[in-house]
């Protein structure tokens, strides 16, 4: 009878030990790849174009100015692999799978919007892949128990806090607020936060209604809102409905002291489309050109600074998109800042392993041109503060918080009749 031999098992164990040892002490990779199912076409194409420009600008800065990510003493360059998800949920899931399994990326950046971000999160989670969210503000993304999802953009519930604080401070007599918003996950969450804060400040919510995505006529809803005679209105959802909201308020002569619209009002296209009708309209923004984040400001609050200055970012962005007339907005800034967060976390972890980088992100605090960065245990962004901008004489002025002001708020804003006669919103 042939005796049982242990030799193959010993050989196998030695091989496994050798393999794990070499893996543990693996040399740094030649490149670190950021994967991104970007919204290059479809309804979020505008925000997607900005985000891609912001990411490419910051990758360029990391590789050329910063020298790459330092891993095990070696500088490793960042590369960027993107596909067009066409702003469609079904494409997001398949593209994230492709990026992870075929392209073998090291981190996945989520597409723009809460809905698309939420759709992709379980796919990244299933592959234990770090999934960084630059355009999905809905808090619910971070209530699902995902371990690998972290946020750069601020949470939706904080969008209108500044606007409400501003009205409370500069117009103590204002009492009645109307909330009219798109019935999307994002806008609903924004207005939940706004409603809670409004009630905390003692405002009376006299009107609260939603409208569907893709709405083409808001007249019935706005007529009902007019009947409640609000002092100020918080509304909107995305780009097209924000323009329609303002336009039809003007059509129906609904004059209020303050109108703040999420997403749309901060974009140059908003004023280009509406002209003088947009004067005085406000919007919360994650970032605006003119914010006062700098190396000195970081030093003052005792936090680390990384990245290009605000002006350098603008210049890199224009170079990245190949259009000197295109100005970065907050979609570009938040996506770019996410690159910088990843760089610092990978260096801190000294690895590109998703679990280790995710743990490092949890302990990370820093400032960049985008502002401060800090996340909660669930991955929700808690370090970044928003600003409120107002269209004044064709320019976007940061009017709140007072510490970031580039101009005083114009309150009450001119009536639509006054604006039709050419009056500007000047404080």
């Amino acid at each position, binding site marked *: 009878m042939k005796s049982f031999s242990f030799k193959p098992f010993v050989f196998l164990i030695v091989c496994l030990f050798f393999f794990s040892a070499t893996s543990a002490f693996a040399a740094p990779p030649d490149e670190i790849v950021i994967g991104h199912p970007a919204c290059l*076409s*479809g*309804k979020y*194409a*505008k925000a997607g*174009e900005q985000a891609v420009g912001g990411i490419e600008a910051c990758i360029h800065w990391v590789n050329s100015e910063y020298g790459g990510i330092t891993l095990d003493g070696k500088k490793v360059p960042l590369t960027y692999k993107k596909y067009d998800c066409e702003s469609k949920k079904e494409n997001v899931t398949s593209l994230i799978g492709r990026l992870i399994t075929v392209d073998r990326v090291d981190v996945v950046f989520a597409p723009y919007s809460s809905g698309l971000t939420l759709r992709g999160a379980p796919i990244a989670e299933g592959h234990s892949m770090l999934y960084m969210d630059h355009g999905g503000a809905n808090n619910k993304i971070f209530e699902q128990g995902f371990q690998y999802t972290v946020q750069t953009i601020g949470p939706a519930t904080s969008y209108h806090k500044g606007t409400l604080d501003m009205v409370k401070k500069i117009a103590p007599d204002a009492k009645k607020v109307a909330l009219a918003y798109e*019935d999307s996950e994002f806008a609903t969450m924004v207005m939940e936060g706004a409603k809670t804060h409004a009630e905390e400040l003692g405002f009376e919510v006299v009107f609260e*209604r*939603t*409208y*569907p995505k*893709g*709405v*083409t*006529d808001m*007249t*019935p*809803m706005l*007529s*009902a809102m007019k*009947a409640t005679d609000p002092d100020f209105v918080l509304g909107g959802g995305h*780009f*097209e*409905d924000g*323009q*329609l909201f*303002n*336009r*039809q308020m003007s*059509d*129906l*002569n609904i004059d209020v002291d303050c109108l703040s619209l999420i997403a*749309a009002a901060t974009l140059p*296209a908003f004023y*280009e*489309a*509406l*002209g*003088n*009708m947009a004067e005085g309209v406000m919007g919360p923004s994650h970032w605006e050109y003119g914010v006062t984040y700098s190396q000195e400001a970081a030093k003052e609050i005792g936090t680390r600074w990384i990245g290009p200055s605000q002006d350098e970012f603008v210049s890199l962005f224009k170079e990245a998109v190949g259009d000197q007339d295109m100005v970065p907005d907050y979609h570009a800034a938040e996506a770019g800042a996410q690159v910088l967060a990843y760089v610092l976390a990978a260096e801190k972890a000294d690895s590109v392993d998703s679990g280790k980088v995710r743990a490092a992100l949890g302990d990370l605090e820093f400032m960049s041109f985008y502002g401060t960065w800090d996340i909660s245990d669930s991955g929700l962004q808690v370090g970044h503060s928003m600003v409120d901008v107002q269209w004044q004489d064709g320019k976007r002025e940061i009017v709140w918080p007072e510490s970031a002001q580039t101009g005083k708020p114009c309150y009450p804003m001119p009536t639509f009749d006054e604006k*039709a006669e050419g009056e500007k919103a000047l404080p």
Partner: protein
Amino acid sequence: MFLEQLSGNLVQGVVLGSVYGMATMGLSLIFGVLKVVNVGHGAFVMVGAFVALFFFNTLGLNPIFAIPAAFAVGIALGLTFYYAAIRKLLHAPELATLLATFSAGVLLEETIKMIFGSEFRGYNWDVGNIDLVFTALPMSKILAALGSVLIAVLLYVWFKRTRAGSAMRSVVEDSQGARVCGINVDGVYAMSFALGIGLTVASGVLLTMFIPVGINPYMGGGYTLKAFVIAVLGGLSSPYGAFFGGLVFGLIENTSYTVFALIPGVEPFALTRFLSFLILLIILLIRPTGIIKAK
């Protein structure tokens, strides 16, 4: 207060409905004559919106001047598309023309995006407001509604009083019989398709006179959906039916909001959509050809 809002929304509904009706006439005409369902309908509406935008923002011309220009662009697009694709697919399974019109829509969207970019644009044509006590109505909306009615009347006269219109009606009635009588059926098909697309593109200008914002390459999707509801409501093969269907749809959309707003705890807009599609379903079940028969 309720009556005031209801009256205001009735007026707004009639004005909006006439523009919706005009925006659906092209879809019904094409289906009525060629039995082709143009699922790229909204993209052609979008082209019209960009024509209006170009006229106003670039040429500095009143959007009313953009209506004939958009019609001409639509005729050219329709003829090109008919001879390039539709003509070859007329006897193919229905899925082929569905896919062809869908592809044409996507092609148009991406072409416009390449030329104009993906931003949401708009224009400001301020010709004043009319204050009706219970609501305010911009003159641009009234002009859009009047323009829609005028085009619908012109189309009616053209159908009834011209040889080309008679030929088109005879093809709708019996294409084989029309061919036997010496009518160039292929020519009628080409003319109908081009006319349908021309009307659709022109309606894009009228829609921007009603809503001059949110103009972007992907704006057509919502209008395609509405156009199908309106077309079924008014009679899928009848352009006039589509016009009246538009009026009914505009009234339902606007007035039902005011009524649904009385129900506590519901979002009226969600119910107006529900109602629109419920009506569509009921009509499909009891009268699949629509309320108004093709003539």
